[in-house]
């Protein structure tokens, strides 16, 4: 298993390096701005550092979700594109083990992003003057929507990756999936069927993400060809 995970790391190394930069860079910029005294109005209550980190944490979280689309879309199709999947197919390793190794990397990546950013946001929010329960609800709603977008990115990428030979198409498909969900909600909104658009998005993502992940996994496990 160690070698399979190592192989996955090597296949996705570029994505991980770019992802790490996107994860760390906003915070680095926020720290630099705070050090230079540049930042949004802190209302005299919060420090410039806290105000900057709130923005960088949110930005880092959102941008890092894009990496999940890349990891999902790249997971299986990349080995089909260069036909190394054929080499793997004649080695004595089960599809389930291959998938487990392929899942380890995005799971680790998602855990890292969320742990780091939630910790930062938790510390920062405690310092900010956020009056009332409504704001807290809004923060949690935004975090939920971000997390679900990441899940949709990954699971749609995973499904397309298991079916296609091109990681580019898989990644593009994953990236436009949330947009399609939003667009599908627009006619419902016009017809006054939707009362809260964010709930439409939330529940659609909640249904779509596991469905795509299960379908992609099932397709890969059932498929005889590499």
């Amino acid at each position, binding site marked *: 298993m*160690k070698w399979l995970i190592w192989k996955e790391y090597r296949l996705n190394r570029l994505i991980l390096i770019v992802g790490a930069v996107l994860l760390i860079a906003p915070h680095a910029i926020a720290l630099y701005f705070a050090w230079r005294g540049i930042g949004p109005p802190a209302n005299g209550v919060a420090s410039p550092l806290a105000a900057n980190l709130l923005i960088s944490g949110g930005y880092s979280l959102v941008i890092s979700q894009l990496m999940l689309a890349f990891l999902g879309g790249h997971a299986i199709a990349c080995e089909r594109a260069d036909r190394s999947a054929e*080499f793997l197919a*004649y080695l004595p390793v089960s599809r389930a083990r291959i998938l487990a190794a392929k899942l380890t990397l995005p799971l680790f990546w998602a855990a890292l992003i969320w742990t780091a950013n939630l910790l930062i946001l938790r510390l920062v929010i405690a310092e900010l003057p956020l009056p009332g329960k409504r704001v807290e609800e809004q923060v949690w709603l935004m975090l939920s929507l971000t997390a679900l977008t990441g899940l949709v990115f990954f699971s749609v990428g995973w499904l397309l990756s298991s079916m296609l030979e091109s990681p580019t198409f898989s990644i593009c498909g994953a990236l436009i999936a949330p947009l399609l969900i939003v667009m599908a909600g627009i006619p419902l909104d016009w017809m006054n069927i939707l009362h809260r658009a964010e709930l439409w998005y939330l529940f659609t993502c909640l249904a779509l993400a596991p469905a795509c992940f299960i379908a992609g996994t099932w397709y890969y496990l059932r498929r005889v060809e590499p």
Partner: protein
Amino acid sequence: MSNQADNGPAIKLAGLTKRFGRTLAVDKLSLEVPRGSTFGLIGPNGAGKSTTIKMLMGLLSVSTGEVRVLGIDPLAEPVRLKQRVGYVPETHHVYRWMRVEEVLGFCRSLYDTWNEQTCREMLGLFGLDPRKKVKHLSKGMLVKLSLLLAVSHDPELLVLDEPMAGLDPVAREEFLDGVLRTICERGQTVLFSTHTLDDVQRLADTVGILYEGRLLVHREVEALLATTKRIRATLVDGCRPDSPPEETIWQRVQGREWLITVGDFTEEKARQILAQEAVDHVEVIDLGLEDLFKDFVKGQRAAS
């Protein structure tokens, strides 16, 4: 059940069929390859050799029919099968970004019966540099790496799909003499497909000729060569020959020359031809595997 599987043929195909849409790639192929034998599978391009081999290895679904390799169904138990079979594909898709030593480490971690001694010996025999990246290996070296990976876990069956394709004559000779012969002499079962019929004649115990997905011939090489002959009959001026004898594989009349390739040759068949009024005299010619193969293919093309 297990004993039966272990004592049975190394490969057993029964009515194996593969369709790609409307195209019939393999047509009700039935075949048995005994354990310890070397089987050469030959056929023109598009005959279905690689498709058959991929189905044997569980890399391609089967439309209908049954496949058993070492008593194992490749689609039901692929991992168990691949632990016991070594495979060298037609094209080599080893991870190009890995170093040779990394490829070896990767494969070593997956095989239960990896034999480090065999691996080291073959690494030395082939002159492969463990530090070299796969993308920097020549075509010949890549074939050797594939072969090394296929044999280092001491497989019971070795399946080689046109392993010498693209190799220069020197590399081919090295491969045949230094490698394949050693493997054949180890008593492992070997199935290989090739376009180079000399190789089959040199190495194989039995040969199968595949044409448009059908197995035309499946016989021991020596027996096939001993019983398949070409008869060159000289015709009397202006006369046409009667029907050819039974078991005629291919025939051609050109001027006064009538060439007939017959299977299960007997002197009686030559006498039957000579007895025809149109025939002046006959000559029996031994065939090499290459000529024999060409005649089988030409005969099939003429029939269809």
